[in-house]
């Protein structure tokens, strides 16, 4: 056992890689959500450090083009995390009854997609775990609902 220096990108990448491995293997989806959520916190900051906008900023900008909003990065990021129940899976306050109603498959998919959107801005799409997940997306998701080919001009079918 010894201490060494790690890049935070390496810590985030390893957690996201494990999350995707568990997801495609059909293993524990709660762990997928927690790992993708933790990786995404680091990735959000690293993307900003490169001078790019992160996924949360992109969503705020796209929505505010259609409907002006005063939403901040922190509030919108918190809302997305709540949708995926990321905080519920790592916290329990005094007085909390402990029950959660959720679609764990949808939340696991959402947590990975958000983290991956940030990861590709820094790490690109060439790593095996990214290619594996994108292949899973093409094989398993509805192309009317999801942008399975990562087309920048894609719009969901109405």
């Amino acid at each position: 056992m010894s201490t060494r220096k790690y890049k935070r990108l390496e810590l985030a990448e390893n957690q996201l890689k494990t999350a995707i491995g568990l997801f495609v293997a059909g293993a524990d989806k709660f762990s997928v959500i927690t790992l993708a959520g933790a990786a995404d916190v680091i990735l959000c900051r690293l993307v900003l450090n490169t001078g790019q906008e992160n996924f949360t900023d992109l969503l705020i900008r796209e929505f505010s083009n259609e409907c002006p909003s005063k939403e901040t990065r922190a509030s919108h990021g918190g809302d997305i995390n709540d949708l995926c129940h990321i905080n519920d899976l790592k916290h329990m306050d005094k007085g909390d009854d402990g029950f959660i109603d959720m679609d764990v498959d949808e939340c696991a998919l959402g947590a990975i997609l958000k983290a991956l959107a940030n990861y590709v801005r820094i790490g690109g799409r060439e790593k095996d775990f990214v290619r594996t997940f994108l292949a899973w997306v093409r094989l398993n998701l509805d192309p009317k609902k999801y942008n399975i080919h990562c087309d920048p001009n894609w719009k969901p079918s109405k």
Partner: protein
Amino acid sequence: MTEIRYHKRDIAKLQLMTAVALFLHGKDLSSVITLAGAAGNILETLVRNEGKEPFVDYGCKVCRELSGKMPKRKSYLYYINTKFGVNQHKHMSEHDPETVELDLDKMAVDAISKAVLDYIKLEGQKESFVNAFLSWTWKNMDGPGIMDNFMKLPKKLKNL
């Protein structure tokens, strides 16, 4: 959308089982630390809700005996979660450097140990993943040596 009702007790167990499985199979230690940390946070509250003493509260008492001052639980928990690498794997603020020094091997063992100790207070020691981890630590962390040192401690520290 198919929503199902879950309880955090079951979610914490699953995350801890996954952490132990990844650890014993030699997989990514950052993931082990994050999962054990998440499970540990939930288990701590569940243990306290049952009127029992979680690891963190016991640790506060050890600090009091050693330093003469009882730390605040929140501060001590933050200290422990940093010491065990949990915070560094799920937070990064604007002014944090892009590198961090960690002993992932030790932190993974410590983070799982904390969560497993609270899990045992809730559910006992009957689960195979708990026994697998305890066997690993006994063999690889010098269990007999740790027990020898514990037995040499003053009585007031052993009986906190």
